[in-house]
């Protein structure tokens, strides 16, 4: 149903312009009528200007969405329902948004049975989540009879913990809260101490925008096959599981970043290789895991180096391991430093073998393996033997779906008969933003979380462009400010993690630019900017007007 504009959608400037036009037309034919004030002006022409304004708005909606040409000229202007109508002629439907879901842990000081009703509300960063089924937390494992019965376990500090699943109350990526975010129940249960997200929330996506829909139209019309870039994107997005891929970049024959087709003794590109960089979600996916580490070295300070290895099925598209803590650690902050990260490739036992010869070529793919060594600064190893083991919890940060996409495009029915396609998570540039907002005394509160969400959305949806401009971010912030507010320069710090393992930092208050280094697989075609609301710092400063 196309929503007609109403009078509330009008702005005074439009009405004033309409009124001036009407006044000019009346005076032109009836110069003796006073249209500047009084009954004509206030009771007749003004309301005519309002009605005309509303009609013009509706007409403008129609003009903006009347054809593919008009919609493509600026998809943001067209009424979504009108766009839906136009694109239905091409059997294309807008994809709806979905609600974020995730697990939260609730810590209490007591272990008594607790029932959490359907619709119980939890708040995190101003966003609301609810339970969609009844959960009963029980301390006795023998009484756990169904999925909704949750076992209460004792922590080593004497408190008790259990987990439940919650769902966002609305669709959208802004509900994708990150691991360890505090999620507070609206009604506190007896003995309540704290509650937090046990891992990053997932599945929350926005409704497809006009721009996304128009982009998909091009792919919808295109043949779905591993051929040129449009065809390849169309093929992938036509598969439901991959239809919401945020951005992709296809590097092939003739591109300087394509080094896999130069695997001969001749310094020539022979073609037949595709590197397919895919960003499947806006936010970095952070997944909590518990792994057994092995003591591989005792250090002179009585501590030791511990090692964890992930096989290729455990870390497809994973960039790095973060927040390593002992499995029973209570704190959600901090972790052990990773001293060494060894990324290798494993292409054994594959029915279709992808041509990968170096670790850098295989980095961030589903064929990478990962070994990390870290120093546990809490465990004295004096009495431990080498190869002793211990459990640690940690967080894997990366891009999901890389393995699924690789398996799909490598399958015999789908893959190109004369080429291999290697699916990769983009080379990451992790971005931190810092800014200050200057406000007059007595200003209303600003929704900082909303600003952070919008900034993260802007950064995470830039596509493969290689440049992040501070001015675009300032523009985003200004949407939340009143006219008397000001924004400082935005400090942008980027950490590019090269496929060969090296790290490069870039920083600027104007533009974060990815310098081309195609031999190391880094360029605007391969790099994506990643940030999340937790990586954005906003401070406020009260601006006091000087006395005149």
């Amino acid at each position, binding site marked *: 149903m196309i929503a007609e504009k109403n*009078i509330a959608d*009008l*702005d*005074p400037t439009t*009405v004033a312009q309409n009124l001036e036009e009407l006044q000019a037309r009346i005076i032109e034919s009836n*110069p*003796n*009528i*006073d249209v*500047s*004030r*009084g*009954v*004509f002006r*206030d*009771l*007749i022409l*003004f309301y005519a200007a*309002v009605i005309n304004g509303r009609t013009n708005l509706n007409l403008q909606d129609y003009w903006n969405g009347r054809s593919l040409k008009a919609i493509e000229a600026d998809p943001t202007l067209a009424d979504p329902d009108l766009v839906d109508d136009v694109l239905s002629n091409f059997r294309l439907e807008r994809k709806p948004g979905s609600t974020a879901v995730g697990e939260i842990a609730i810590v209490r000081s007591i272990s008594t049975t607790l029932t959490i009703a359907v619709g119980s509300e939890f708040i995190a960063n101003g966003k609301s989540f609810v339970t969609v089924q009844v959960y009963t937390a029980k301390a006795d494992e023998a009484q756990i009879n169904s999925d909704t019965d949750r076992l209460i376990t004792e922590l080593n500090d004497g408190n008790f913990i259990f987990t439940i699943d919650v769902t966002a109350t609305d669709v959208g990526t802004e509900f994708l809260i990150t691991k360890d975010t505090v999620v507070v129940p609206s009604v506190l249960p007896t003995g309540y101490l704290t509650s937090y997200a046990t891992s990053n929330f997932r599945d929350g996506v926005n409704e497809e925008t006009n721009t996304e829909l128009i982009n998909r139209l091009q792919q919808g019309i295109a043949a779905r096959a591993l051929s040129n870039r449009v065809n390849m994107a169309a093929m992938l997005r036509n598969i439901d599981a991959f239809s919401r891929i945020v951005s992709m970049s296809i590097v092939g024959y003739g591109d300087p970043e394509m080094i896999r087709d130069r695997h001969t003794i001749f310094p020539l590109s022979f073609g037949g290789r595709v590197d397919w960089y895919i960003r499947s979600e806006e936010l970095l996916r952070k997944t909590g895991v518990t792994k057994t580490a092995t003591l591989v070295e005792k250090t002179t300070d009585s501590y030791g180096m511990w090692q964890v290895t992930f096989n290729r099925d455990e870390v497809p598209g994973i960039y790095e391991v973060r927040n390593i803590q002992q499995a029973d650690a209570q704190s959600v902050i901090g972790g052990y430093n990773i001293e060494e990260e060894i990324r290798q490739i494993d292409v054994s036992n594959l029915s279709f073998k992808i041509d990968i010869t170096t670790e850098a070529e295989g980095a961030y793919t589903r064929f990478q393996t990962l070994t990390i060594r870290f120093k546990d600064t809490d465990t004295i190893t004096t009495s431990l033997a080498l190869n002793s083991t211990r459990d640690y919890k940690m967080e894997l940060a990366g891009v999901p779906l890389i393995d699924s996409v690789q398996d799909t495009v490598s399958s015999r029915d789908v893959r190109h008969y004369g080429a291999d396609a290697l699916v990769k998570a983009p080379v990451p540039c992790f971005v931190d933003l810092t800014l200050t907002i200057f406000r007059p005394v007595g200003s209303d509160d600003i929704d900082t979380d909303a600003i952070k969400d919008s900034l993260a959305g802007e950064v995470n949806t830039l596509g493969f462009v290689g440049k992040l401009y501070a001015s675009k971010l300032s523009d985003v912030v200004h949407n939340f400010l009143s006219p008397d507010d000001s924004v400082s320069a935005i400090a942008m710090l980027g950490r590019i993690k090269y496929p060969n393992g090296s790290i490069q930092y870039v920083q600027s208050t104007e533009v974060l630019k990815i310098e081309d280094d195609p031999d190391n697989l880094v360029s605007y075609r391969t790099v994506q900017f990643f940030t999340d609301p937790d990586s954005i710092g906003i401070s406020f400063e009260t601006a006091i007007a000087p006395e005149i």
Partner: protein
Amino acid sequence: MSSVADYVGRTVDLTAFHGADPDSNRVLLIQTLVDELGGSVVTGIQKLAQTFLIQLFKIRDPDGLDPNEGCQFIRDAIQGGWRQTADVTQSFYASLIDIARNFSVKENRQTFPDDERYQSAVIDSIILDGDRVAVSITLTSQAGSTFNFIAPIPILPGRVS
């Protein structure tokens, strides 16, 4: 009785307040078309008077579609601010600030005869009677007392139905 000759060289407005009489107080009929009389136009001091009343009755809304027109007089009434005659007086004179500015802006942009230019307004009397209020106002133009009352003249046939 006025004639077309009185309107030569003047701009006119539609009559919205019918029955004005310079020599007596009477309740005006508020509508643009009147049965038996049809529509009429007005000029001179009565045009100024009805423009003043429209400004007085129009609620000023800085966030609305006509942000520079009207005043707070009726808003005060709607919000229950009139509990005694002093409240009405205070509301009226506070509103005059906005009304005077509105007149001034337009009179600086365009030339009007003196009897159509606002000078001042004062309250003669206020009667609060249950849910009714009667406010008697004296409006003075730049012409002072030297003006001719020009009665409205009809512009439509007599019977409208």
